[in-house]
């Protein structure tokens, strides 16, 4: 029995895992996975989501200042620093014990008046928190009371932290909320295409001074490549940009997690049709995305020509990449620390399969997996991707060790390529380091390249991923001089130490 097996882990296909795991937030799930707590909360997901609207949109928090700090800590550091989002002003009602007991309607009204007067935004979005929601503060009544007095449009996006702690559930709730901010279309641009599903990726281009591309350029390239026009990239832009989003003919999808909920809500509200392919990465993945759009827009011929030309440019690189990675296993570590993400990583999995690799996923918390209905639908039901997933207890979110995963699968260092999301990737000089196991930085947070999407979408993103994989395999042939990171995490940082230990064993 392997170590993982003895600890209660087992490999299931994603489909089987989906069908056999209990419903989220049930006693059965709690027993299976003790100490599951989620990653963030609905308030942070919702507020950061709406803070992607810029210039004339202000998100007001009705709750304690602490909630704003929790959100701001990410929003004003990583999101702004590395993803081209400007500083988001975050006025807050600063709810205290008194307001929790007596109600916070007055402080909310005062805050809205002040924000309207001082910040003069076109749109104010109110998000609420555990405290204000649990005491049943009537936010809508306050909005009604201020009608006529406050010039900005004011809307309420309920977001109590506790309601849907699983990331998938919290994110799903944002779809109808963002659609409710939009106006019914006056005219439909028959050539216009929206791309939904951007999250913390400012719609700001390298040509405008961005140092490392987001994903906007990739979609502009794909959509204009078949003779259509990008109407809106959501979320992004100012209030006028947002409110006129329904004037596109169709909604295409960037990420299912963020895009599907908004697309469903826009379809319901405005009748905007939407397409289900997402994350165009890899030759096949990009072709499928483009052709689905082309079929809808009646531009198959242009698309076929465009795709063929782009594929021809990448043919040599594709073959080279395939030569390097074919037959290897792509170890997909779905966030060692948060265990919540797999959508973007699975798109790398799709790309890897096309190159002749096998793929498996681990460190994805079963409750997070089960909450992400849209990712599952996009990959498993629509694309038919059904890789092996390591299901097990992950007590208190403790990760499994990738070396145990390799042992469990009977793989050696030359048979794997390791990708991960977020931070704290595994490393240990002497046994698991970029110098001896191929490692590619696919993390949404960490991957930044000039001239290509940091999510790897589009043809430039695909090319970059191929180059990255080739280089990773080449680096892993070194078998000596481990990285500083690997040495820091290891109890045998020096080669003389671990070589001695290897010799002993």
């Amino acid at each position, binding site marked *: 029995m392997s170590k993982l097996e003895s600890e209660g882990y087992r490999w299931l296909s994603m489909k089987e895992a989906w069908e056999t795991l209990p419903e989220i937030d049930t006693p059965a799930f709690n027993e299976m996975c*003790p100490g599951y*707590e*989620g990653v963030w909360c609905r308030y942070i997901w919702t507020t950061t989501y709406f803070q992607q609207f810029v210039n004339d949109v202000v998100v007001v928090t009705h709750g304690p*200042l602490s909630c704003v700090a929790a959100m701001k800590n990410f929003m004003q*550091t990583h999101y702004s620093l590395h993803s081209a989002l400007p500083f988001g002003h*975050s006025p807050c*009602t600063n709810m205290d014990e008194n307001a*929790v007991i007596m109600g916070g309607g007055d402080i909310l009204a005062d805050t809205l008046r002040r924000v309207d007067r001082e910040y003069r935004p076109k749109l104010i979005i109110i998000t609420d928190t555990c405290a204000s929601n649990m005491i049943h503060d009537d936010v809508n009544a306050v909005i009604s009371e201020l009608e006529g007095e406050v010039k900005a449009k004011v809307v309420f996006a309920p977001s109590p932290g*506790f309601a849907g702690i699983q990331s998938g559930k919290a994110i799903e709730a944002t779809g109808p909320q963002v659609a409710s901010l939009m106006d019914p279309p006056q005219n439909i641009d028959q050539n216009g295409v929206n791309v939904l599903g951007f999250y913390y990726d400012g719609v700001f281009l390298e040509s405008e001074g961005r140092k490392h591309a987001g994903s906007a350029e990739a979609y502009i390239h794909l959509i204009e490549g078949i003779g259509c026009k990008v109407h809106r990239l959501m979320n992004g832009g100012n209030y006028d940009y947002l409110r006129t989003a329904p004037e596109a003919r169709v909604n295409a999808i960037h990420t299912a997690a963020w895009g599907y909920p908004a697309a469903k809500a826009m379809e319901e509200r405005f009748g905007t049709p939407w397409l289900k392919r997402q994350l165009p990465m890899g030759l096949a993945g990009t072709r499928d995305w483009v052709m689905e759009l082309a079929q809808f827009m009646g531009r198959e011929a242009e698309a076929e020509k465009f795709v063929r030309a782009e594929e021809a440019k990448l043919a040599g690189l594709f073959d080279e990449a395939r030569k390097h990675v074919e037959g290897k296993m792509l170890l997909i570590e779905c966030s060692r620390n948060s265990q919540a993400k797999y959508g973007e990583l699975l798109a790398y999995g799709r790309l890897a399969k096309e190159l002749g690799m096998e793929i498996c996923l681990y460190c994805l918390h079963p409750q997070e997996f089960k909450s992400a209905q849209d990712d599952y639908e996009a990959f498993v039901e629509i694309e038919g991707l059904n890789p092996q997933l390591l299901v097990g207890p992950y007590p208190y979110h403790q990760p499994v060790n990738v070396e145990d995963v390799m042992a469990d699968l009977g793989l050696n260092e030359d048979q794997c390529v390791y990708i991960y999301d977020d931070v704290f990737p595994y490393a240990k000089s002497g046994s698991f380091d970029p110098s001896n196991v191929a490692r590619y930085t696919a993390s949404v947070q960490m991957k930044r390249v000039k001239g290509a999407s940091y999510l790897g979408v589009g043809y430039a993103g695909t090319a970059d991923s191929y180059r990255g994989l080739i280089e990773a395999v080449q680096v892993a042939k070194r078998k000596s001089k481990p990285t500083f990171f690997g040495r820091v995490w290891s109890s045998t940082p020096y080669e003389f130490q671990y070589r001695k230990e290897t010799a002993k064993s």
Partner: protein
Amino acid sequence: MMKVLSPQSDTQMRDQMQPGAFIGSLMITSGITDVVNVYHGVSGCNAMAQHFRGDLVPNGAYVPILATGFLENEAIMGGGAKLEATLRDAAGGRVKNPPKCIFVSLSDCPAVGGEDIEGVSRGVMEELGTKIVAIENAGFVGGIARGAELALCKILDEIVEPWEGKREGINVIAPFLMGSANMPFDIDHMVEMLKAAGVKINLVLSRNTKYDELKRFAAAEANLMLTYEEMRDFVRKSDALGVRTLSDEPVLPYGIGNTEEWLLGLAEEFGDAEKAKAYLIEEMKKVRNILYRSYNFSWMASFVSDKYAAVCGYAPFVVAMTRYLFHDLNVRVKVVGLWGETTACMEKARKILEPLGETMDFTVMENPTYYQLGEAVREANVDFVIGAMQDKPLFTGLGIAHLNLAGFYYFNNYNFVPWPLVGVKGSLRLMSEISKVVGDAFYETEAWKKHGFVAGPETE
């Protein structure tokens, strides 16, 4: 002249970086190395707690925060059972050797729901014999200073033992409330300086502190608070244990002028002033050995002189930094943005800054919103701002160079060299940091981009 503005004094609305009470408590308890924290609440709050706890890691310890897994179901049905199960797991050493003590913190949701964390903790403690201290520290009960005070009070109530012997030395209280992003290395050097000046350190509450050491809190003569916030409950309880709290503690030792005042003041009262002077002289010799007759130093010290700056962050750090810039570097500070939780904090900061108004014109803003602060700084037309990582996009977005020395260590503050900003030796680091922001503020990079050399057309 010093002009004081309190733009938010007539409203509860705020827009500033102020984590809630449970963070303050966890920053105190996470500096105690042989304990475990249990966090009972929603994960968004805990994400912040786990991250800020990381401030204590460099040259410190990793003290786990074990979450009870409070989900929507618990918000409706109550989460006592999960709290109890987690306390049992923690006591049994599930994530760390069985701890000497478990501290329980909670978030808004269970607090509003009326969860009896004290009762559950008491029950498990009686059954298992592991010390458990529950702290009612939801985010809405106050900011980090209030949370720190709640934890300190619990420690005094439930852990500290009475002291009958001679009281000596000082307790250094709540280092993270200084407001320095270099806090781990600053507090370590402050302790080093005090020891060199013959001041006995009875306890640092907390930094690499052992649980058993907490018991001897009352053996100190006095508490040195590293915050300007009023902590009335803590002071009263400490008085009852026979340990007074210094009410007029000196400005934090950032820069030579502040360090001289700080160390000699404390040495005179609790240590040996002569030793302190000898130490300061030796330290200055080392600094001069690096800077004296250095062309680079002379260039930068001259370059930075007479420039304009703004500073924002938690009051103790900002006050010290304002004095440092003005006194040590001859920089004019035009805008001072102060964060603080209590009136006493603002009064104290004002009192310290006021004498500067005799020789410099500047504006002090008390708890401004980021928008108000940004506008004031923009209008003041300063060359650079010293603030926190979280306000870098604001000021840089306004086209003003920014240096993140304030706030928390965690998240994109890359201070890996264990060198303090405080003390005489800290002046070297401060000078190096200021030199970086001078580069951002004064290098004419746009001109380089616009007028850089372009090779002529290629010829056959």
